[in-house]
């Protein structure tokens, strides 16, 4: 197993290299000059040239790449061309809200989606199944900003149970953090629960056709025990895969939710940096995303071993 993990990590290196070259080109070839954006409306050409020189933007693209890459392998991702804060610090500031939002959403999603999907499969093609699936199609289809605004209107503006916006860090207490994240997590949960419920239903339905299920029933085991202890465990691989993909999407892919609820997550940092052409930040985040995605995939792969003994061999 350790050799397997090491092998997987080593295989990630060429991927990261390719990703960094690609991102560097994409970011730098897009029109828009950060020097002009930094200088502001009233700046003279000489001022803009000075800024360009300071940011090495006057050098050739390959030369800029070499400067950036040689720093990046020493874990120096540079500093934001606006605030001057190191990119590593900017990302670190955003990890907690991003991770907490992703984790809270996933916990809610799993709590809702897996039972619903299992029940839908168990009662396949019946009224319960169709109702659950109708809800999941609705959850998946309604844009997240619509549900977000509705949730805010009802629970924050009218009932005042939760704040409209903002994130309370863990240093304010876990209770405050969870309160500040409840509405965004529910909004996101509705989308992801729909997806995971459908995958769970399909996976469970397939396992329910297996001979061993019939045997268990014949031996007189209760439906609940069969579903929870045997069927779900066997159907786990595709479900965990989708949860893994969902978690990766939640890290950085939820800009709209982060914007509507004003959660200072990595997704917003990315979009802000792109809009301002803050090259070091964009490059640093993409590198961070790539590493995170590779790690999540690795963890998903490793978790297969829990569900499928064949993988363990």
């Amino acid at each position, binding site marked *: 197993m350790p050799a397997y993990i090491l092998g997987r990590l080593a295989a990630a290196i060429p991927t990261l290299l390719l990703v960094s070259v690609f991102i560097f080109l994409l970011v730098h070839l897009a*029109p*828009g*000059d950060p020097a*002009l*954006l*930094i*200088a*502001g*409306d*009233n*700046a*003279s*050409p000489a*001022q*803009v040239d*000075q800024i360009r*020189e*300071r940011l090495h933007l006057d050098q050739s693209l390959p030369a800029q790449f070499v400067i950036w890459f040689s720093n990046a392998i020493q874990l120096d991702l540079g500093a*934001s061309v*606006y*605030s*001057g*804060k190191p990119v590593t610090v*900017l990302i670190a*500031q*955003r990890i907690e809200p991003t991770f907490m939002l992703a984790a809270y959403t996933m916990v809610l999603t799993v*709590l*809702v989606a897996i*039972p619903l999907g299992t*029940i839908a499969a168990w009662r396949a093609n019946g009224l*319960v199944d169709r109702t659950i699936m109708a809800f999941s199609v609705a959850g998946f289809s309604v844009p997240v900003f619509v549900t977000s605004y509705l949730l*805010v*209107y009802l629970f*924050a*503006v009218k009932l*005042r*149970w*939760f*704040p*409209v*916006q*903002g994130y309370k860090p863990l240093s304010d*207490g876990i*209770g*405050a953090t*969870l*309160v500040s994240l*409840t509405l965004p997590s529910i909004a996101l949960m509705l989308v992801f629960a729909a997806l995971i419920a459908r995958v769970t239903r399909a996976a469970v339905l397939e396992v329910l056709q297996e001979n061993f299920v019939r045997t268990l029933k014949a031996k007189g085991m*209760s439906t*609940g*025990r069969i579903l929870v202890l045997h069927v779900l465990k066997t159907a786990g691989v595709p479900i965990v895969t989708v949860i893994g993909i969902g978690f990766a999407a939640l890290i950085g892919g939820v800009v709209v939710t982060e*914007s*509507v609820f*004003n959660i*200072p997550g990595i997704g*917003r940092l990315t979009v*802000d940096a792109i*809009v*301002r*052409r803050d090259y070091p930040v964009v490059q640093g985040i993409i590198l961070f995303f790539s590493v995170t995605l590779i790690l999540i995939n690795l963890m998903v792969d490793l978790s297969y071993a829990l569900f499928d003994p064949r993988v363990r061999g």
Partner: protein
Amino acid sequence: MIIVCFHVKYVTLRVLSIRNFGEKSDLFVEDAKGCVFWEDKLKKSALLLTAALATAAAPAFADDSVLRLRMNGDINSVDPISTTNYTIRNASYLIYDVLFALDENFEVQPQMAESVEVSEDDLVYTITLRDGLTFHDGSPVTAEDAVASLTRWGKVDGLGKIMFSKMESIAATDDKTLVITMAEPWAQVLPAIGKISSNIPVIMPKRLAEQDPGDPVIEPIGSGPFRLLVDEWVPGSIAPYEKFEGYVPRDEPASMAAGGKLANFDRIEIVNIPDTSTAIDALLTGEIDWMEEVPADMLPLFEGQDEAVAEPALQSGNSLQLVVNHLNPPFDDPKIRHALQLALEQEPFMQSMNGDNTELYEICGAVFFCNTPFESDVNTDRVLTRDVEAAKALLEEAGYDGTPVHIMHVTDIAGQDAAYSVLKPMLEEAGFVVDEQIADWATVSTRRASKEPVADGGWNVFFTGWGYVDQINPMTNVYVAGACEDGWFGWACSEELQELRERFAATNDPEEQKALAIRMQEITHDLVPYVPLGQVYPSQGLSTDLEGYIESPVPFFWNVSRAEN
């Protein structure tokens, strides 16, 4: 079947119970209402969690001792010299102090300065600093700091550069005295170092002010009434400030940028809420206290609300302007520029941005804005009255060959997006050929700096919106510079304008200044560096429990306090 048990007090959690799901496992227990839930440790931790949620949710979300603000942009820099960005300018007034400042009559008053003496020949300005000025790092403010700060400002600011070009020397003669010696009399010295808008001549420690202005200062050390808490500052999210205990305010009452700056809040947070609708909800529920701009289409959300009001910020006037590039065809021909003026009129543009809220805008052809000392209606006929036939006739007379007008349609700024949609049909109706490209603001702000032909990345026209404070003053209004290739984007060229500006700067006589300003307007509307498309008064959102908020073209957050209930 499924029963969802919902316990109001605990908000959400005792969620899902499963009944008739085989026999009861020892994991589940049933309560009096028939709801089944997790027993054991799971249940206890769930209850603890819900209790924690309920306690945290109980109190109001606002904290009275903190003032929370939402500006139009993000605080992503602490150096108002390295950028002219208005959001950075606004936030810089918290951190930094200035030698002189404008009062509500737009007159220059001493702020950090105790006094100023001007020699009889109007050449030597001796400025004495007042007692008790301290930087946020604890060091005293000296005249040397002021000299270094003004020198850095003089390298970038438009007015500052002119001032330094006419200066013989600037020096500190002792800790509290600086002497500015001009090479020739120049009436704008105090208005320049007392200017209210970008770049504001803020005073920072000499060691920071010696940094090149193109290299932004990242250590925010000022001597203003609030101190940035650098460790808590998350660019893109929040910039927290705390009251600087070492600040000694002036004795005079606050008057716009001048007078005593009384910090009535221990903490100010500038929160970057990207979504406007969310920001309004936050204002209406008391989570924030002030937002810089409420879009016209969202004003109805404030009707019948008692937490907050949205009111036109009359002094914060803004504008819509179409900037014209004089280097590229077809607008390198003055007649075709006049046809452009005739092809447009202000009302449709203002309606596209403001809807039916006519109190939010004003039709105005004055180069130095309406309701201002230099307002004039001279030579505004072509600017204010649309005449399609006359435009067509001018195009024909000029031999317009159908060279397309290249429009960079900005879609990521709502007001501009609407205005571009109005621009295209108006131009086409008057006989122009239009080539429209979709772009974001970052692209346009880069491309507008290009002096190349359109095919090589140049441009013809773009929208911008200079603010009131910058436009009312002939010394800072970029359109009356006539500075050719050294000027602002568009590079309109007029030696007479350059000369008029010199004469304006040299005189203190209000009547002479007014006459010069009117002549500037006359030339400007013939030259067409831009077409004015209306003066706008955006609404700001203000919590109703605030009092003492200063009406000003630049928002200030001293003097304001929370009313006792």
